[in-house]
């Protein structure tokens, strides 16, 4: 049941300072879990395992429950995220107007599979359901900015530009 405390619980790569501040300022009342997860994700960009373990200990909640909440909400991420987030809409309208082809282009251009992040942590590519602007279909959101009515060429242009900006 025990494990070496030299390694696991205080992971050397994990800097707990920000989380400690969140946990001490945030209240530990019932229902505090989601706001604490949000603040932690803001601080770390995602929810690293040691953070979830520390939150569970601090709130006296089972890790299984904390993990359950973190995996339930789409807003939480358990893996590091890219600097740029590319969201490709796969709502019905976008699907009909070529979201699949656009996805192929973006994946090919950035070298990142859907649902994952490039190794250099530059890009995260995600597939999302309807983003609510079907009139502009097909639609891609890059860092929250909407790009509509895309052809495959336009999509290639946009991500190439993004790549250039990133390497400069």
């Amino acid at each position: 049941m025990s494990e070496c405390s030299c390694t696991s619980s205080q992971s050397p790569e994990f800097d707990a300072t920000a989380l400690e501040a969140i946990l001490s300022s945030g209240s530990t009342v019932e229902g505090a879990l989601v706001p604490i997860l949000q603040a932690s994700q803001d601080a770390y960009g995602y929810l690293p395992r040691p953070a979830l373990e520390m939150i569970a200990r601090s709130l006296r909640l089972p890790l299984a429950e904390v993990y359950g909440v973190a995996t339930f909400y789409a807003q939480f991420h358990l893996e590091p995220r890219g600097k740029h987030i590319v969201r490709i809409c796969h709502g019905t309208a976008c699907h009909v107007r070529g979201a699949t082809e656009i996805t192929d282009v973006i994946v090919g251009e950035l070298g990142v599979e859907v649902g994952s992040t490039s190794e250099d942590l530059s890009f995260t590519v995600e597939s999302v359901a309807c983003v609510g602007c079907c009139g502009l279909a097909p639609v891609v959101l890059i860092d929250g900015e909407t790009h509509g009515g895309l052809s495959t060429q336009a999509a290639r242009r946009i991500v190439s530009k993004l790549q250039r900006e990133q390497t400069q």
Partner: protein
Amino acid sequence: MKTISLTVDGRAISAPEGQTVLEACIAADIHVPRLCFDSRLEPYGGCRLCVVEIEGMRGYPTSCTVLAADGMVVTTQSPDLHSMRTTVVELLLSDHNISCLSCDSSGRCDLQDLAYEFGIETPRYAGETHKVDLEDDNPLIARDLTKCIACGRCVRICEEVQGASVYGYHGRGFNVLPNTPFGGSLTESGCEFCGQCVSTCPVGALTDRRAHFRARAWETQKVESICGYCGVGCTVSYEVKDGRIVRASAPLGRGVNGGNLCAKGRFGWSFTHHPDRLTTPLIRKNGVLVEASWDEAISLVAEKLGAIVAQSGPQSVGGLSSAKCTNEENYLFQKFLRGAIGTHNIDHCARLCHSSTVSGLAASFGSGAMTNSISDLAQAQVALVIGSNTTEAHPIIGNELTKAARRGLKIFVIDPREIRLVRQASGWLQLKPGTNVALINAMMRVILDEGLANREFIEARTEGFEALETMLLALDLDDAAETCGVPLDAIRTAAIAYASAERATILYSMGVTQHSSGTEQVRAVANLAMLTGQIGHPGTGVNPLRGQNNVQGACDLACLPNCLPGYQPLTNRGTLDRFCDYWESDVELPETSGLTVVEMMDAAVSGELKALYIMGENPVLSDPDQTHVLEALESLEFLVVQDIFLTETTAYADVVLPAATFLEKNGTFTNTERRIQLVNKVVDAPGQALPDGEIIVALSSAMGLAMDYDSPSEIMDEMSAVTPQYGGISYRRLREIGGIQWPCPDDDHLGTPILHTKTFTRGRGEFAPVTYRPAPDSPTEQRPFVLTTGRHLWNFHTNTMTGASGGLRELNPSGYVELNPRDAKELGVCDGDMVRITSSHGSLDVPVHVCTSQHSPRAGVAFMPFHFADAPANRLTGGELDPICKIPDLKVTALSITRIEA
């Protein structure tokens, strides 16, 4: 409780208030399909199969979440309901790995039954299916989530009943499946391997790996008996095929466990089929144990014991009985030693666990047993858990505490270690080992100061309060807090909560008893209960949790040197003669007590004790000061050991007699709450091994005290005739009404769930002011650590049974010393590093376990389980005995720890 009436499918039924519609239907034998319901769990309403129509209610409510109400009119079968239920089952089947041909759950699978009930030959829907790759590396629980129907029963039982919360619902939508955090293996996710999830899984997603491909559900016969591990006394149903046990489970709603089991109870039975079991008697010839016939072995033992009695007198013989054996066998054991040999030199392991309870509570209350029942814990508002690692040593009582805590029970854990129960607790008083008296006295002083003493109770029911009050008023609270190392505020909070609760209970175990001041510590606990009047009604009491399955019974039937069956004093010639007459024995029994375990070892070394007959004990590992025990066993002229395996103790035996396990005999056990329960033979003993009782009968008859019984039931009849508390116990009644709690004086009596309700057994409860005395072997500069010994969930006692049960054995196979991270850092050791630990009694090299908790054990405390021959904790213990009950100090031993360079 109010009874309500409702109509279900045109039939009038009644139900107690508070029952759900589904529960009322089940009780009335009305079939309602369901998948996510388990009577052990809180209402859930997830699977939508138990939907019904209720007049006046809109839609189709789930019957498992609607409380039955007076006048309710319920329909459980209608075309609409049938159609909805069929669709649910079809949807579940569309994503189910249908492999009923070889699925281990086939024949006991609820989904299979429902598919049959609704006549679904091929699922109507097809679509995405779950593909799950699991870390599934443990030896006991097999997980196959392709068969999971996401009913959540495993998640809920792990959280609601077990309190372990290993599983959670992870992901969302179609992807939701019960899993461990980060998909880790059960082993690394803190699984306790109770198998409760296996027991509740309605399909084949969670199964007992050890039973795979061993028997189809319909091929086994079920035999119900009582578990032979701890003192809880759980009802277990063993499934047998071809004379071998295949799996164990607990029947729902029956026994003290009501369907729950721990790792040992569910998975710890295969030792009984182990190839190393003793199958013939063994006699030492030329230094080697060789096989012999029963005739040869019994004649030799009778002849040798007879010669030693003739030469050195009956007091040169002693016997150690076994709390593992049945009541009948323990009764016969002491009858043999008293009636055939003529000595009171009889003792057993209770000396080392709860002898201070027997002496302390007998002095305070008049009866040294658990005052209340396990089931009435649910009614307590506050529980003090002192020196009891309940979830590991008495797991099913741990479950009761966990469940009660969810309903508002405030638990205060008093323990140097952050035991698992701390997670469920409102407070944790991390005292220094051996300072219970200081802590309890401080609590009593707070209670006095706050005006929370129950003066009415003290006046009406007790005596000696003035002396206690005087002692308490002289107490300095800050000093006491300093002594026990617990902040005064925490002491105050716990004291006020306990005293001001309407119903508060105390559970304690060996953290209180295993001290050279054990009797005083028990009396302090009794003082606390009497001061507040928290005794004599449900949800209160002083509840020592007894360790072995039948340690209560072995004590009741006088495998003790200082009393006769039923705790009758042996200082009275008349009583002694009455027993001898009853037994048709012509020996002259002394009017003075015999030797206790530890005294027998001393007497063996000094040469006064020449022969020892040990039934089912392993003192080389279980008794303090191993070096001294070995010297004692070597000094004996003749040692007989009766056991199921060769053990560390049989190595010193002249004769070894092969015995049957608790799974191979009939009889009764008495559990920790004084409940006498029937034990039924599940399988045959291997080879020539015999039930312990039959061996004693043969030996006694060979030595001239005839014992003639056709069955254990006849032995019970004799026991109940001479043991007042067991007066109304017979096999007929136990079969008819189930377990009975003593005292049960006559055939019309239904037993006594709560002691001391109107008066104490001794009349008035007696306060005894006790003051804190430091443990004799407290830490010094040379030995700065305190060694405290204890138990592990997956091991039992000297590991004879658990270590021979495949699956369980692998979980925690060897010894270690547990340190907290800060002490480990200071010593410069990491998890797994070897250290040398040394006390004044001996030294051991042992690997370190560094606790994951920063706070456990308390700084300066080293914890060791005592189960393991490779790291025998009792090589380090020993020292002073309690002057009254002779229990040794096993919880406080000064220790030095040094790192061994690799």
